[in-house]
């Protein structure tokens, strides 16, 4: 086991030389510091941003937006919200039978008004420039190609994102005794079970999502705690410590940190089989760099490697602007009638199949 771990560390160290060597943050003079003289990272940060993790392909290797392009992005988002929040016809009728055509997690039954979506109102502003993606390596701003295993895992996840037919399709397609996606609570997604934030909000690496983008950092000389608004994930980074034994694993992994000048470097391993980062495995290894560049901004950098999933390491960076907002309690299990409805609804749909009622439309 030691041989394996040492080998992984060597590979990882080589792969991340570029990431560590290209850090551009120097020694900042006017930043808050602790009594021990270390940069004080404490505070609340709102990481919502219009900048995507991966660069849209049409940008190619264009790494930055012009100011005019950045302004256009803001305007487009502003106009989109105006459109979505325009009044509806009060005499409107019910939405369409069979679903409203929306995709994704809403499962063609539609999201609501945009009132709960908060992905920010501007792109990332970093060192006076507007990056076209959070990923900076590879140069195309996109994740490296998947390995064969990574592709298979991605294909498996894609199967779960199918249109909602309003039927027990798993019985119709695979037979009455075939396993289904709603057979028991344990096979439902971790976020649905209130166990882990989705979209890698808790990470690591910690990435923006459509809402609940606050991060709160509490710091002592020995620990740095990062509270994530989404699903109340809390990361505890042990400063100057060693990793836990490899058999001790968790969704957020095991994070240890050290100071590299004024930058806190956090090394995370010991993930379980389902880290928050999409598709990653228990061999995920993440290095993050937190640098407070001024009283209003934290510079966040990350490097990712998982040889089971990606054919090369990849890395990214973005700004964490300080916020006066407070993290509102994420009471996931309070008023959570959804989970009961999901499982109970599946039983009713299965009974429909047994009774020969293939869909409600045919009742």
């Amino acid at each position, binding site marked *: 086991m030691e041989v394996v771990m040492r080998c992984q560390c060597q590979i990882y160290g080589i792969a991340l030389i570029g990431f560590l060597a290209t850090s551009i943050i120097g020694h900042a003079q006017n930043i808050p510091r602790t009594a021990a003289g270390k940069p004080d990272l404490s505070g609340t940060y709102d990481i919502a941003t219009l900048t995507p993790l991966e660069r849209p392909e049409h940008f190619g290797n264009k790494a930055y937006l012009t100011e005019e392009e950045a302004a256009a992005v803001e305007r487009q988002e502003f106009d989109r919200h*105006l459109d979505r929040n325009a009044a509806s016809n009060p005499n409107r009728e*019910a939405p369409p039978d069979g679903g409203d055509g929306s995709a994704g997690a*809403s499962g063609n*039954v*539609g999201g609501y*008004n945009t009132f*709960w979506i*908060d992905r920010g109102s501007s792109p990332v502003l970093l060192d006076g420039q507007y990056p076209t993606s959070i990923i900076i390596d590879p140069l195309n701003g996109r994740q490296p190609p998947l390995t064969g295993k990574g592709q298979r895992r991605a294909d498996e996840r894609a199967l779960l994102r199918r249109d909602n037919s309003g039927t027990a399709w798993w019985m119709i397609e695979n037979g009455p005794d075939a396993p289904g996606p709603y057979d028991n609570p344990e096979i439902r997604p971790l976020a649905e079970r209130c166990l882990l934030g989705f979209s890698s909000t808790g990470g690591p690496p910690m990435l923006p999502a459509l809402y609940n983008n606050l991060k709160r950092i509490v710091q002592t000389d020995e620990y740095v705690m990062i509270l994530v608004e989404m699903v109340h994930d809390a990361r505890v980074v042990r400063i100057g410590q060693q990793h836990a034994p490899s058999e001790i694993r968790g969704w957020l992994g095991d994070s240890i940190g050290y100071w590299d000048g004024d930058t806190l470097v956090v090394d995370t391993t010991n993930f379980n089989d389902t880290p928050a980062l999409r598709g990653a495995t228990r061999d995920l290894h993440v290095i993050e760099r937190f640098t407070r560049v001024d009283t209003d901004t934290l510079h966040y950098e990350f490097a990712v490697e998982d040889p089971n999933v990606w054919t090369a390491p990849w890395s990214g960076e973005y700004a964490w602007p300080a916020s006066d907002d407070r993290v509102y309690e994420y009471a996931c299990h309070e008023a959570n009638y959804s989970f009961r409805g999901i499982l109970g609804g599946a039983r009713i749909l299965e009974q429909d199949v047994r009774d020969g009622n293939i869909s409600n439309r045919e009742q």
Partner: protein
Amino acid sequence: MYTQSRRFLGPVLCLITAGFLAVAASTSAPVIAHHAFGAEFDPNRPILLKGPIVKVEWVNPHTWIHVEVTADDGTKEVWMVEGGTPNTLLRRGLRRDYVQPGTVVVVDGYQSKDRTARANARDLTFEDGRKFFMGSSGTGAPYDNDRRQ
């Protein structure tokens, strides 16, 4: 064709067939959420509800708004409609007491797969059609006005 569904959905004021797709798609937002709405609600049971709010459960990440609906035959039933996270609204200065019992709302969405009196609030408006919540960035809400100054 819809007789049985209409009878089951006694308080539902209207059921329509497909053909609304284009308009509906333009007013709904696919979202990545902590649970998939497709797992909870039934696309074959579209609903339209209208009535006064009787109760609000103001919990992050999901609000539940209880609406009393009167059917054509005069019977009343309280429906629960699921809304989004309240913390975004709080940060924009919209508090729980903004949602007053007695306020008449119009909700369209889809009934829960378990066929109880629950639905998602695909579109939730006052009875004059104004959006009930306008907390998102870029809406002219107080939060945005502050940020743009």
